[in-house]
């Protein structure tokens, strides 16, 4: 019973944080900060996938969306300008 409530509590905590991170990533004018917000959203999603018992997705989501994707975007930002 406690575990079910804890799981539900974590989901209720992580889902709004991810939504707020998406909002901030879209509205932020500094692109570097926007990438960090996007990585924060990915981190929340990674935890959510783990809570929802999808370890296969977690294993691919963690390196791709927290490591490779922000790195690719950061490389691309370096080729353009830091602010919109």
């Amino acid at each position, binding site marked *: 019973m406690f575990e079910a409530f804890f799981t539900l509590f974590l989901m209720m905590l992580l889902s709004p944080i991810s*939504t707020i991170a998406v909002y901030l990533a879209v509205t932020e004018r500094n692109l570097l900060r926007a990438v960090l917000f996007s990585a924060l959203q990915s981190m929340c999603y990674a935890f959510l996938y783990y809570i929802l018992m999808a370890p*296969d997705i977690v294993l691919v989501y963690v390196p791709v969306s927290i490591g490779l994707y922000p*790195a690719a975007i950061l490389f691309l930002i370096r080729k353009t300008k830091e602010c919109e």
Partner: protein
Amino acid sequence: MLLRRLITVSVLTAFIVLTSYTITVLNVLGELPPRSLRPLAFWFLNTSFTPWLNYFSAMAPETVTAILWDYRGLDTLFETAVFYFAIIASIALFRGIEEKHGGGYVGLSKIVRVVSRVLIPVNIVVAASIAIHGTITPGGGFQAGSAMAVAPLILIIVFSRFFLKEKGLSKNLLIALRGAGLVGVGVASILALALGLLSGGYAFIFQNQPKEAAPIGLPPDVLGFPAGTLLIFNLFEFIAVFAGFTIIFILLSIPEDVAREALHGKH
């Protein structure tokens, strides 16, 4: 400005809450997933590792890998092909851009370099274990390849991309590795068919375990470790994905002025 932001956030929040409420509590889209689809999941979970039903089984305790490389293996092959063509397109975009001079790089501070030296072997071991254990625990080729690709990415950022080149991990070697990975996936997909043709029997493309109409299949385990075609697919996909991502990062790390110079000349 603040009021406008507040209104946007309130509208967004209301939209998310209402959509979630109507889909989950009010069931406007019907039951999700539909009841008619549930026997399918039941079938996969019940047949992925059943030695007593070996004509139906993929003989791998990891159901997700069994689905990816056996039940719907052809889909995964096409996904691999799409990824391959995306990498080819990136290489084509960056053609002719090569920085000749190397060496003399400094890299980040000593602390970062030492920490990276400690962490990178751990990263490689974890990635290899995800690939090799892909038939028994969550994981598989793509997961392992993308986890492994983080290692050269860290090396590029912390040391330099010339460091990779010095250690022998050049773009051309990675393209060769990627090709080898893909050839391996291709060969594994017709392995049972080739065995069937050689022994005069009957077999399918993408066949893993023996089927009733085609009794030729790959050994379900090697020294007690679940194998079949799934292990071969996982290992080669691991190499292909790792090489693909690393090529992209080597290309992306070329500074913009070098790329411009190669495209437009010195002026």
